[in-house]
């Protein structure tokens, strides 16, 4: 993701808009205190982050909000009957074809987290970073130079499953979802933080 320079060249109104978005959480995805909002907005803007939501044009979520919420609750160990049922029904009826369908391969909450990314036909290189809480951040560069997109996978097993798909050894040769990955592995890499690049 290309870094931005020239924060001071932005108009005061624009800087204030990003600061308010950072405070509300629409800029980075999580709200922050008013004291830290300005520095958060600056750091996020400088890092080249996605500004569409802060401008009031958030991209349409690729999974319904209740499903995303259920996936987040499940990944945090708060999943109850409702979350389990929501994820299960979504997986069986509405999950995109490029999501591995097998529960032996990928958990429902991991599938919902993965589905928050766009179709893999547009993926460039992919980066995995383990978090302190055991979850894994997955950042996908876009082929066409658009904003990077990211999702949080619930555990290492989910990250390993996605890496397996990216290595072309996923949930079975007869899976139709391979078409969406095309020949991704021929022209792109994934890497895991603090390890050598794996292709």
């Amino acid at each position, binding site marked *: 993701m290309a870094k931005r320079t020239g924060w001071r060249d932005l108009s005061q109104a624009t800087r204030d808009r990003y600061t308010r978005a950072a405070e509300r959480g629409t800029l980075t995805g999580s709200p922050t205190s008013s004291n830290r909002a300005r520095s958060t907005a600056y750091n996020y803007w400088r890092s080249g982050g996605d500004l569409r939501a802060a401008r009031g044009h958030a991209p349409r979520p690729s999974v319904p909000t209740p499903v995303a919420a259920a996936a987040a609750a499940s990944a945090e160990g708060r999943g*109850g009957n409702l979350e389990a049922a929501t994820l299960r029904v979504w997986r069986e009826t509405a999950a995109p074809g490029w999501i591995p369908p*097998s*529960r*032996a391969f*990928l958990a429902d909450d*991991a599938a919902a987290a993965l589905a928050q990314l766009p179709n893999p036909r547009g993926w460039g290189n992919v980066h995995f970073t383990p978090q302190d809480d055991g979850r894994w951040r997955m950042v996908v560069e876009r082929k066409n130079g658009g904003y990077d997109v990211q999702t949080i996978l619930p*555990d290492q*097993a989910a990250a390993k499953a996605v890496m397996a798909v990216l290595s072309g050894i996923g949930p*079975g040769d007869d899976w139709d979802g391979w078409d969406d990955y095309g020949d991704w592995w021929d022209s792109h890499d994934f890497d895991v933080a603090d390890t050598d690049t794996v292709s």
Partner: protein
Amino acid sequence: MNVGPPKRKATLRPWAVISVHGTRGLAVTTVDGLVLRTRALQVHQGLAGLTGHAVYVGGRLTECRRIGGDARAWQASVWNDKAVSMTHTPTGLVVRSLRGTLEGDTDPADSLELFRGWLEDRGVGLGSVSAMARNLWRRTLPTEVEIDTDPELSRPALFGGRQAIRGARTYQHQVLLDLEAAYPFEMANRPYALTWRKVSGSRSLDPDAAGMVAASVHVPTGLAYGLLPERFPGDDQLVAYRRATTVRGVWSWGEVAAAVSCGAELVRIHANYAPATEADLFGPWWRNVADGRALPRGAGRLVKAVTSALWGVFAVRGESHVMRWDTAAGNSEPLITAGPNRPNPYVRTCHLATETTARVRSRLLADVLANPALPPPVHVDTDGVILRKGADVTAVCGTGPGTWRLKRAMPTLEVKAAQVYRFVCDDRLCGHRDPLAAAVAYQAAPVWHYSVAGVPASMARDVFRRTSRPGGYTVELPEWPAADLTTDDLVSPNP
């Protein structure tokens, strides 16, 4: 760990069964027949000639040390205080046990050859019982799967089969019911968790899902048997099923759900884990091996031993040791030293054994122990119960794997402890060829059948006689009040 179909083709080997001939000779049975060797050089050449065979022992494994007359040439691999293989160090020959499956077989060579053919039809070669069990299963996995759960959670919930008695005494007019192919059937019955996810305490304990829960459960009064197993404080070999108290532990969802359906009250959930990824790990395996249990004689018993051994592969723990003898005669106390430090690859699959044993205990509880239509059994052992003759068992009995069947009548039963009993069967010809003599002998002195778990049939009688009445164990009760327990509640999984 990742488990999938074997990448290499199986090594198909011929078999050989060896035993001691005389005091130090070698008897070798192969598909070509029996060969006896007595001289030391002949014995050595005989053992060397078996390289490339799957070699088993007829009789006790450690008796191999007498072959060749020099016990120092042999060493045993020991796991959990049991010899699992013997190696003849000069030739490198490894000898394994078939766990007594061919004992009493009229034609063991034919049975073994039949078993070998059945095994090779499934792409698996001869080996140790647990290796054959593992390979038969792996051959049926469609693809590689990752199985990874925390043994800190699953290990405390691994209790094994349930054993209990109503009292150590003699009973009249009893019958034995058993659950046919209990373990493999329950393994193939429902999917297993491959990984877990911590979930809210409000999540229902779905008996059909392989979740785990740490909970406090109140077991009511008025029950003939307790509902949930607990490990005895300070001694993890002892398991208790307390009644009229609140028990706390880690159990599978299915087992807690069965206890609740039998009257227990779920007081509090301390931690709850649902399957995150799950798969039908054993369905294809069972469909592939079930027919083998019907093979004749020892071949069927071998298949049964191999299929029954699979769940135990996931429960293995402990360290390996090496046993040696420092005298040629091998009569001295063996020397036991630490074995090679091999990590156990199955340590993070323990929950498969935990869940399997819980399923069988739950069937036992729901079908028999808490069934108001049946009298309380006088003896309970894993997948079998002995109860009063005349009880209407038709409602629970069926035909085929996974159903209860009336196995035999026991006009007289003498129970000394859980898993230690003897009985007189209702076959008046039993043990006698002449019907008239049998009838007379039966009146005078009935033929007893002895049953002691984990002990070969030939030794069961002696062990039974050495077991003092009444059964049970004298234990200190460091935490639980003595009034909560009777010796009938408290049993050891391995007496």
